[in-house]
């Protein structure tokens, strides 16, 4: 089975940023990682490769040159091939634009299975995967927590729904699945594979992105959210905050 995993590089979730004129300003040097659910998608791809002899796993990322780091990690985890589609990610590209660039690159390669995270850790839109499936004409299921080859061909997948309900599907190949985090923790890269990945040449491509031109939605700007509750921030040292919280909870008869 030829498997493609789409991996997004994101900022570290605790990176402190500021907002200036509706744009995010990040500290330098930035701390980056592979988006959490994409890592679970990669793990699912690698597990299928382990189970199905003759399979190969590709990793692709759309981002600036620094996004190469997530591809090297993917190679270290066991991916066979990696490709970087060069494009600036700040301000972020609209999902339809990302899906179109990925589709154009992936189409001639005719993958049997495409895996993405259910949503990126930062933007949380959940749209690139299903849009990519549509552009490539693939069957699609989202929020998948289990994938297994079906005896009759194709895959059996388990989707997770609201309140923890499950939906089981038999899905034909070629297909695209968006993967939700699960108990199957992404593997660590092996040292030998990491060393090899460090030296590997990663093919990079420069898709025509035309960022901004003809986008179906335009980003007007970012703002801090308002607080929906009192949001009393406790002051002082740790002990003083503990005293204050104790008093507040006693006062409200919650303790």
């Amino acid at each position, binding site marked *: 089975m030829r498997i493609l995993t789409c991996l997004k590089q994101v900022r570290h979730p605790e990176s402190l*940023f500021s907002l200036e004129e509706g744009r995010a300003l990040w500290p330098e040097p930035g701390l980056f990682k592979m988006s959490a659910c994409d890592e679970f998608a990669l793990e699912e791809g690698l597990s299928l490769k382990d189970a199905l002899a003759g399979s190969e796993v590709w990793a692709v990322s759309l981002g600036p040159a620094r996004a190469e780091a997530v591809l090297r990690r993917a190679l270290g985890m066991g991916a066979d091939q990696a490709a970087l589609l060069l494009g600036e990610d700040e301000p972020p590209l609209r999902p339809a634009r990302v899906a179109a660039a990925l589709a154009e690159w992936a189409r001639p390669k005719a993958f049997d299975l495409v895996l993405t995270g259910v949503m990126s850790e930062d933007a949380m839109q*959940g749209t690139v995967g299903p849009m990519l499936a549509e552009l490539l004409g693939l069957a699609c299921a989202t929020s998948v927590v289990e994938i297994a080859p079906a005896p009759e061909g194709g895959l059996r997948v388990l989707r997770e729904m609201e309140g923890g309900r499950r939906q089981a599907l038999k899905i034909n190949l070629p297909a695209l699945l968006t993967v939700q985090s699960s108990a199957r923790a992404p593997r660590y890269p092996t040292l030998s594979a990491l060393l090899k990945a460090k030296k590997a040449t990663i093919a990079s491509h420069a898709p025509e992105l035309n960022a901004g031109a003809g986008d179906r939605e335009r980003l007007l700007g*970012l703002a801090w959210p308002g607080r929906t509750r009192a949001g009393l921030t406790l002051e002082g040292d740790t002990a003083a905050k503990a005293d204050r919280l104790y008093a507040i909870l006693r006062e409200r008869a919650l303790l």
Partner: protein
Amino acid sequence: MSGSRQALPAGPIVVVAEQGPEGVAPVSLELVSCARALAAGLGGEIRLAVLGEKARPLAEEAARRAGCPVTVVRAPGLREFQGEAWREILAPLLAAWGARAVLAAHTTSGLDWLPGLAARLGAACVTGVEALAWAGGALTLTRTTLFGKALEALRPEASPLALTVQPGAFPAAGPAEGPEPTVEQITAEAPALCSRLLEAPEGPARDQALARARVVVAAGRGVGRPENLDLVRRLAARFSGAALAGSRPVCDLGWLGYQSQVGQTGAAVAPRLYIACGISGARQHTMGMQGSGFIVAVNSDPRAAIFNLADVCVVEDLVAFIPAFLARCGEPEAMDPPAS
């Protein structure tokens, strides 16, 4: 919206009802509310589409409650929710109606079919919409981004619009005045599908103690190590009627069972007191606890999204804070962790 476009769709704003195990889910009425706000600038009637075999008996009640006309869409073989079937049935229908907009709930169901449909229709697509505003004929949609820490304002520049709407963001629509809304039924052709539903296994059993708890103390990824979970457990033990819960990452790591998960794909709780320890406050989590009576958040990241809905914010590492709090409660500082 751009005025230069030649043939803007002139049909309805279509709200696709969210279906849960008990029929049309309450969030569907919130979608109607959002559609009304959209219609203020976009025009067009609002039409609620209810799909599937169980749709008919649900539709009349939905029409009465939502106060808008309902179209029941049935198709051979179409039973319960299946994203691919929803997409394949809705795509030609929306095109035939000339829909100006299509709205779905921002849930695992809505997100399963709407983005692909948007790509097919060339629609402007925004997911997780929390607010919308019209100014000078221009529409602004607001959603949460950047790890839940910031809001982004977006302007659609294509038509139709395809939106998923965050549950809880809009009030539930009430019945409109005037005559009883109509319910029509149409039968669509059976779509050719690449997937089929199988018998689903049972999800994790629900923790009844969690649903009943007066106090919920929840651990997030900020707990860092499984050993630190004992601190959270000891904190919970200070409150009577307290239950221990976790965010999704903590359950994925196996530190707590999935029956203890609070959030979109776990339990929804509304205790008198909710203490979030090391929880970042992603929407997927807060959807399961935002109705709590009093919310205390402990997190070392001062910008953590959880602080935006907390009554009390404690910017501290929980590993330092919880022992200090326990000491204040009169617990000896160096106490052995309780045997489990």
